């Protein structure tokens, strides 16, 4: 049982285009503790969409810049920083949080966070954005449905990559806002589990679809086959910053 916003610990995996609006919204909404996980440095090309950071932050570690930014707008928020990318060897970091918010730009991390959330019995909110589209999904601690009920496994072969495709800043803002609202609904005891939101920035449409649990899901189905974090399961092309 999560004790409301002020007593909550929310883990944010990736503090970039999505993680920035999520972090700001949750801090200003009164979430007590934010655990930020990332290992990147602020690049000038990040600034159009990573709204936590300013020109003067270029070259700084993202988490240090993020901690300063949150201190300016919400000084009572406790910020813990983990200067590392999430990987199979450190997924245990997530065991201490009440809600996991996945905001990275890598398929492998999304599936890793989804598996860790299910195995740790934590609520999960996953977001993704590329060019003009974005999606956000909220799943409960028991799954039914979980991320793998919808997106079964890592894409194989050549996929669109954010380094060549780009990410439109406002799409990150919309999806980050949806993710933050999903988190607040969890903390307020009115979760939207099993909801997939998809935003089309060209059409300006935001749709919410209910998703269903899949009996054959390897993570939360009737005969799950994923019962531990196996490093070889999370191998895909990285998406450079």
């Amino acid at each position: 049982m999560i004790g409301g916003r002020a007593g909550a610990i929310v883990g944010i995996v990736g503090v970039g285009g999505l993680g920035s609006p999520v972090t700001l919204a949750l801090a200003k909404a009164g979430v007590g503790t934010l655990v930020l996980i990332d290992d990147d440095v602020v690049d000038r090309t990040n600034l159009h969409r990573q709204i936590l950071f300013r020109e003067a932050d270029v070259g700084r570690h993202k988490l240090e810049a993020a901690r300063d930014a949150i201190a300016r707008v919400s000084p009572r928020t406790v910020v813990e920083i983990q200067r590392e990318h999430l990987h199979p060897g450190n997924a245990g970091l997530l065991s201490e949080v009440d809600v996991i918010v996945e905001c990275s730009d890598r398929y492998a991390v999304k599936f890793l966070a989804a598996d860790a959330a299910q195995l740790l019995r934590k609520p999960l909110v996953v977001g993704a954005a590329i060019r003009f589209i974005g999606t956000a999904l909220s799943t409960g601690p028991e799954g039914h449905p979980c991320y793998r009920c919808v997106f079964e496994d890592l894409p194989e072969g050549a996929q669109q990559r954010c380094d060549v495709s780009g990410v439109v800043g406002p799409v990150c803002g919309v999806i980050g806002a949806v993710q933050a609202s999903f988190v607040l609904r969890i903390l307020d005891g009115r979760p939207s589990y099993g909801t997939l939101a998809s935003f089309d920035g060209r059409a300006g449409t935001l749709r919410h679809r209910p998703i269903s649990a899949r009996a054959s899901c390897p993570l939360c189905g009737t005969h799950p086959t994923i019962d531990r974090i196996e490093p070889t399961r999370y191998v895909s092309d990285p998406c450079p910053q």
Partner: protein
Amino acid sequence: MPVIVRIPTPLRTLTGGNEEVSLEAPATVRAVVDQLEAKHPGLKDRLLDEKGVRKFINLYVGEEDIRFLEGLDTKLTGNEQISIVPAIAGG
């Protein structure tokens, strides 16, 4: 009756940038995929593999995921909107 297929951004390189494709009276979702391939070669391979719909692709008829209907054999009556929702990374 025409069926409208909404094409997600990652696949629009195959549709000449078109966000929607209108198809004439496909009877099933499988026929939708075949008509898409005829109009825009290469799309079918992005949606299906030898086992069916690719694992990271979701096909919706209206608001319903076809995995919970009759899969590719889901029947269409016309005027439906088909959405393709792929797993995406980025942020």
